[in-house]
């Protein structure tokens, strides 16, 4: 029985590691991180890979040791005596502090660097502003239009029935007149975007796995993130903060385009306003 437990633990540990190592689940399903299309994602991916290596080794070693000890010590012979682990508790505590301590310290320090590269750097002055509003259960985006200014928001004017998702007063507010409101987000490739986030109603989140950007919307707080996409393509923006019954379907598409395609797209959208 004990040997079977040991073998099972080893088999489970190995089977658990295989999809991580091969990035594949049976049936050609990919299990790795999605491709990275951002300029800042490299640090995150490195950090992830380092952590995976350390966590994976700790995982395998501990499980193997557990299995081995179960295998080895479960059928004592009558004369067997209790033996102490070499080094005893002190050795183990020191080992834990040295090995794990340095490990987590290193992870923490390098992780802080990755985190800082995203959150502690201000957006470039020429970053393109885009506003995103999250609401039950859709994202809407606003581009400032030719004047480069966003008109003020009037929550009491919000009317989904009349497709006034942001609550713009296009009759009275000069700045709002040329604002372009869209249901999908298009951005030019290799251009820094300064995304201004606010929530219409509840907590939501803005997550684009490929962009390595993840930020909650906080009702009552205006937050912003900035990023640069480096690869043309169509990606999905998903909500990760439980916001109600339509949470699973709260998403929008992110289209990364060439500057020229983007300009055309913006013109098309302006015509639809």
């Amino acid at each position, binding site marked *: 029985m004990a040997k079977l437990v040991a073998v099972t633990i080893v088999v489970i540990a190995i089977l658990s590691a295989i999809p991580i190592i091969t990035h594949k689940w049976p049936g050609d399903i990919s299990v790795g991180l999605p491709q990275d299309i951002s300029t800042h994602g490299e640090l995150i991916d490195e950090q992830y890979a380092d952590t995976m290596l350390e966590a994976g080794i700790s995982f395998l070693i501990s499980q193997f040791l557990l299995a081995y000890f179960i295998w080895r010590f479960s059928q004592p012979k009558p004369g067997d005596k209790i033996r102490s682990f070499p080094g005893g508790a002190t050795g183990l505590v020191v080992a834990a502090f040295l090995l794990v301590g340095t490990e987590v310290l290193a992870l923490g320090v390098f992780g802080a660097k990755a985190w800082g590269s995203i959150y502690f750097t201000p957006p470039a002055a020429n970053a393109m502003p885009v506003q995103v509003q999250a609401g039950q259960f*859709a*994202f809407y985006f606003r581009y400032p239009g030719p004047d480069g200014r966003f008109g003020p928001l009037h929550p009491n004017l919000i009317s*989904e*029935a*009349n*497709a006034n998702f942001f609550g713009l007063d296009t009759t009275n507010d000069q700045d709002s007149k040329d604002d372009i409101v869209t249901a*999908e987000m298009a951005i030019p490739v290799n251009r820094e975007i300064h995304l201004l986030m606010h929530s219409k109603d509840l907590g939501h989140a803005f997550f684009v796995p490929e962009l390595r950007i993840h930020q909650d919307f906080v009702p009552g707080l205006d937050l912003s993130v900035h990023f640069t996409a480096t690869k043309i393509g169509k990606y999905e923006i998903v909500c990760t903060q439980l916001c109600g*019954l339509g949470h699973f379907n709260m998403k929008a*598409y992110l289209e990364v385009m060439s500057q020229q395609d983007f300009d055309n797209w913006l013109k098309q959208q302006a015509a639809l306003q």
Partner: protein
Amino acid sequence: MKRDYNSAAVLSAVVLICCGALILGQRVNAAGEGKITGNVKLDGPAPHMKGIDMSKDPWCVKQHANSPAHLETTVVGQNDGLENVVLYIDGWNGPADVEKSVPVYDQKNCMYTPHVLALDTNQTFKVITSDQTAHNIHPLPNPMINVGWNQSQPPSAPPIEKSWKNPEVIPVQCNIHPWMHGWFVVVKGPYATTDDSGNYTIENVPPGSYTVKAWHEPDETQTAKVTVTAGGSATANFTFKAGK
């Protein structure tokens, strides 16, 4: 076992009531009910209806690949006929709950069809879904007047059957697809909704003088006085101004 009996009893009761209603209806008709007909027009150029971008749900986008969706606030048909206007008799004091048909409110191609559903008080209606994407139907009555509800309909879910107790204009919304918007217009007594040419007919109106009220979203009404004779047909035409 007991449940079978119950349902049998309910079924026979329903059949009896239906037969009774049919016979009664014919008898009353024979006594000479009239009707009110007419036409509703929009005066002025039809306003631009904003397009709807459904890109959040690719299934919806696919359904509208050839016919771009747009708002249905003001839908103008032939000869400036205004669609989706509800006509009913203001201050109806005839028999309560006259309408017995079961209208259907369909969620089709990520839009509500019809956009405006007129209902008698306590008239049962069905909400169905023809879409292969989950919808949520959320009427928002004034809680002091009617009891609201908020329910989802996954694809091929059975119809939701409901009714409203009191007259009220109730906006309807799908929370999953924010652009989906429609109306339940709950009135007392007979009613009609204009077709795409703006024509309507209110049937089964007993002889007498009435004020006909026309409602158009978001909250515009007009009235006209008519007199219905036995077996006759009165006419009331309305014209809404294209303002916004």
